[in-house]
């Protein structure tokens, strides 16, 4: 049994039905890791995007190299790095948090690019108009540029959300009990890998489809020109 739920080894179908609630527990962890990781990626990506576009070369250049470094190295190795190195510096986090941070870190490199592209895509005329109206830069960003950048940014961010969902099984390498790990444990104990792994594959497919649908829905709901001011 796992999570207090026993499984039924009588037939393959009974087995599949009995492990479904166990896999759902893993699904919850998967979803939580994705949600937390995505929030971190959104926030950290914003910070990185801002830092990267600063006119100060001493700040923008190292940040650019850092972003490129994160993008070009495997998530698994970054995960191991955080998991084993952070305790050396006295930061001992539960595996789940380390996993979410690793996900957020890797995807923040992607989201920072998305933010940059989204801000670039706002027509230059908007800036000129704001300048003509004597708006300060921060106000221009807040009320003119960012509301128009958001609809452009949502599709790409949505794709990365779906992508992150499919990366959560890596967290099983540091003992996080997400879906794949749960399925593997069931397989290790019953020697029946086919059913749990196939079910997990199917669940991911369903999750991906639902998540992709949610992203399209959000895209459609957003006004094309940008979020209105008031």
């Amino acid at each position, binding site marked *: 049994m796992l999570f207090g739920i026993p499984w039924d080894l009588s037939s393959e179908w009974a087995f599949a039905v009995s492990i479904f609630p166990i896999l759902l527990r893993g699904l919850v962890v998967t979803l939580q890791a994705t949600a937390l990781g995505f929030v971190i990626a959104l926030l950290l990506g914003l910070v990185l995007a801002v830092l990267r576009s600063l006119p100060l070369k001493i700040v923008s250049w190292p940040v650019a190299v850092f972003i490129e*470094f994160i993008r*070009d*190295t*495997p*998530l*698994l*190795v*970054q995960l*191991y*790095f955080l998991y*084993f*190195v952070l305790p*050396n510096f006295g930061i001992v986090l539960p595996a789940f948090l380390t996993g979410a941070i690793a996900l957020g870190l890797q995807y923040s490199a992607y989201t920072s690019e998305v933010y940059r592209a989204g801000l670039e895509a706002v027509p230059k005329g908007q800036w000129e108009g704001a300048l003509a109206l004597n708006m300060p830069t921060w106000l221009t960003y807040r009320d003119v540029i960012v509301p128009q950048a958001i609809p452009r940014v949502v599709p790409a961010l949505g794709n990365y959300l779906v992508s992150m*969902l*499919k*990366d*959560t*099984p*890596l967290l*099983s*390498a540091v003992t996080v009990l997400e879906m*794949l790990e749960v*399925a*593997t444990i069931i*397989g290790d104990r019953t020697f*029946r*890998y*086919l059913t749990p*792994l*196939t079910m*997990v*594959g199917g669940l*991911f*497919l369903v999750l*991906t*489809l639902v998540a992709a649908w949610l992203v399209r829905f959000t895209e459609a709901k957003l006004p094309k020109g940008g979020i209105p001011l008031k």
Partner: protein
Amino acid sequence: MEHWLDLLPPLLRGARVTAELALASTVLGGVLAFAAGIGKLSKFLPVRWLSVVYIEIFRGTSLLVQMFWLFFALPLLGVRLEPTTAGILALGLNIGAYGAEVVRGAILAVDPKQYEAAIAVNFGPRYTLWRIILPQALVEMMPPFGNLVVQNLKDTALVSLITLTDLTFQAQNLRNLTLDSVPVYTMTLFLYFGMALVLTFLMRLLERYIASRVGVAAARARG
């Protein structure tokens, strides 16, 4: 410092395995990408259906799940794969599905006038595809392919979880031996970074070569 240098030989051995896996899976993925990408545009329903199913399954599920399935679940259906085969297969199938969408998008982006011109000079559909459409689509495909190749390199790290002795596996080994995580993982990250930079450079060279071979007009039309 000497301690760090001692770590290099096993890591480099792992890096060599990583490079081999990346190369093999990229080739497999490339073949599958063209097969499924063109297949999805086929007028034969079974071919289209097969391509769609393949692309949806391998893009919609996690790579690690696919790898575990090939390594742990497939033997229970009677097919026992070597870890290397399972790894290359999983990586290739996965990157092929993403590549198929790139191929399809690039083919669809070719100007419809090219098809009309081909009909006007009496080219058959297969000849048109091979000599007219694909070369122009190829120019369009190269930048996203570059990204996918680097992504594939990063994905090879996952084979360490199905017992293949790649760079990440060696790093884990060394860490367990020395209990000193910082030098091991730092060097591993830099090795991957170096390989990714080399790959990006090579892909960019390839991009420019293709653009020069296909012709300036096509490259200009795309960019």
